[in-house]
């Protein structure tokens, strides 16, 4: 059994702000991340999948299929976008790294069996870094 991890990057802007609390509470909760014009990151995501070796290829995960899935479900909708304004779910959900990681996991999980037929490989984790200092790891079995 192998775990294969592939890293991708995309640049996007966002603002951390929730209308459910006051302006001051937002400032306290999110600090600079609540600044009204938003700001940007070079997001780094790592997609990990687990599976046995396929004899004919010597690979546990078909990387061409994985790359295309990530391109279509994640990179194309989010690359060089304003997450709050242009990615539907973030009109009503704060685009923290946690929520972004969960959304990425959800999108990949939803389409996984249409591109990977059979029991393997299985999507295992998504790891997302907003900056090089903090990383968030989401297990696929934690996400609906």
């Amino acid at each position, binding site marked *: *059994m*192998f*775990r*294969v*991890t*592939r*890293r*991708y990057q995309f640049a996007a802007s966002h603002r951390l702000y929730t209308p459910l609390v006051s302006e001051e509470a937002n400032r306290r909760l999110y600090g600079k991340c609540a600044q009204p014009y938003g700001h940007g990151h070079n997001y780094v995501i790592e997609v990990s999948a687990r599976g046995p*070796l396929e004899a*004919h*290829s*010597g*690979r*546990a995960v*078909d*990387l*061409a299929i994985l790359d295309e899935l990530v391109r279509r479900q994640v990179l194309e909708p989010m690359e060089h976008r304003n997450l709050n304004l242009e990615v539907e779910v973030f009109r009503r959900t704060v685009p923290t790294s946690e929520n972004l990681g969960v959304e990425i996991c959800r999108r990949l999980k939803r389409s996984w069996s249409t591109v990977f037929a059979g029991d393997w490989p299985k999507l295992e984790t998504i790891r997302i870094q907003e900056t090089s200092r903090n990383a968030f790891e989401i297990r696929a079995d934690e996400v609906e």
Partner: protein
Amino acid sequence: MVVTRKVEFSASHICRNPELSDEENRRLFGMAANPHGHGHNYVLEVSVEGQPDPVTGMVLDLKELKEVLERTVVEPFDHRFLNYEVPPFDRVIPTAENVARDIWSRLESQLNRQGRKLRLVRLYETPDLYVDYLGE
């Protein structure tokens, strides 16, 4: 407790199954099927699990781990063309998975001793692609 050491080696390889057509190889492996080969700066992280010795305070002597990795992996793999110079890759496709598993099999008997156990072989083919092998 898990101790991890990193080494690097530069090697070339061809990812190609001789039993498949050119087109099938291109679809499966993309540019990695280039019949002239291509190269990587592989980065290998080897993790050993154990408990610190009550006298030395070490899980294992890192000088010993360094020597094992140099002799067992770097020396045979570094600056080599895997398909032509490093068995079993004359008959096994040198994907990152197969190379990681081969490295595990070379290291296991040397590192599993005195209460320590090889726990993980992580092989980066590129900074954006790595494979973890944890034994079967």
